[in-house]
């Protein structure tokens, strides 16, 4: 029998101005099974964006991606990184509302296994990207930081909404 509505909005962050380099969801409850972040917006300098858990860097992040740029499909990976590389060929640009992404954090509160994240990132003027990312840590995820790099900042009006999905 169905357990009732379970796609629960937890928090929304809307960027104001052009000086925010990092948007962080913190003190995330461990009561859900998966987390989803839906993002839409832009960036002040065209560039990749990143994800980091629990403020933890080091070399624990890696990923494999599949990308299309309108003329060719490609695949690549990164290893032993200090954060997730979220976009590659579908990074945000300075055009407002040009970029969307859905981040799926699976089994995020499990304290026995590493953490796998699936990201779909899309920018109609740049490309589309599907990636799988690993955080080689058994720690439960309690905070998620969505980061720009270098001189780039999240664009004014960029939104991030965090949802929790709880299995029966």
């Amino acid at each position, binding site marked *: 029998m169905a357990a*009732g509505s379970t796609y629960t909005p937890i928090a929304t962050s809307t960027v104001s101005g052009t000086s925010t380099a990092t948007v962080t969801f913190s003190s995330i409850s461990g009561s859900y099974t998966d987390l989803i972040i839906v993002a839409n917006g832009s960036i002040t300098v065209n560039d990749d964006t990143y994800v980091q858990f629990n403020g933890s860097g080091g070399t624990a992040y*890696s*990923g494999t991606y*599949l990308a299309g740029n309108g003329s060719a499909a490609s695949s690549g*990976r990164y290893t032993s990184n200090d954060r997730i590389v979220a976009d590659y060929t579908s990074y945000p640009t300075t055009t407002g509302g040009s970029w969307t992404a859905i981040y799926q954090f699976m089994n995020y509160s499990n304290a026995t*296994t590493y953490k796998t994240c*699936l990201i779909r990132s899309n920018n109609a003027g740049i490309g589309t990207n599907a990636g799988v990312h*690993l955080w080689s840590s058994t720690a439960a995820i309690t905070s998620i930081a969505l980061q720009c790099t270098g001189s780039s900042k999240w664009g004014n009006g960029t939104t991030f909404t965090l949802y929790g999905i709880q299995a029966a």
Partner: protein
Amino acid sequence: MWWARLLNVISGLLSGAGAPASTTSYESIATTTVGAGGTTTITFSSIPSTFKHLQIRGFVADNATNSNFEMTFNGSAGTKAHRLMGDGSAASSDLYNSAVIYAQRTDTGQFAFVTDLLDYTSTSINKTIRTLAGGDNNGAGRVGLWSGFINSTSAITSLAITPTASNFPQYSKIALYGIKG
């Protein structure tokens, strides 16, 4: 989302019903968490027909084997699946003669998937599933988009996921959700 709930309240008031429309549009139906010793097949049966679409969300712990993970429906195999995949060095496409949702290889570690099964109760159309799946293992891994076809107009009342050459290890979790239309 708050704005969806507000619209539902307004809709209910304008209709004169005096009560807001239902907001329970995404519901958890059943979950399997694999215990010690693992399991070979995960099955969801007696699926209620009260939803429009189904979503299956899965995490499979490190499996260390070469295996395809296939979905079967009402005890029968899906007919076809196409895959667009990246393996970290190249993009490729394949055709399967069953509803494969992920192809794991020894070096790809744990993986996760999200599968959508659309219009599963319809008795006038065949069925389509689509999957985003992937696993990374810091130097190895694969991510892909799978599209599966079920050549049957029967309503789907059960589905099963089976690895062709391994099992679901302990700590794997597969959950079934219903989406109302």
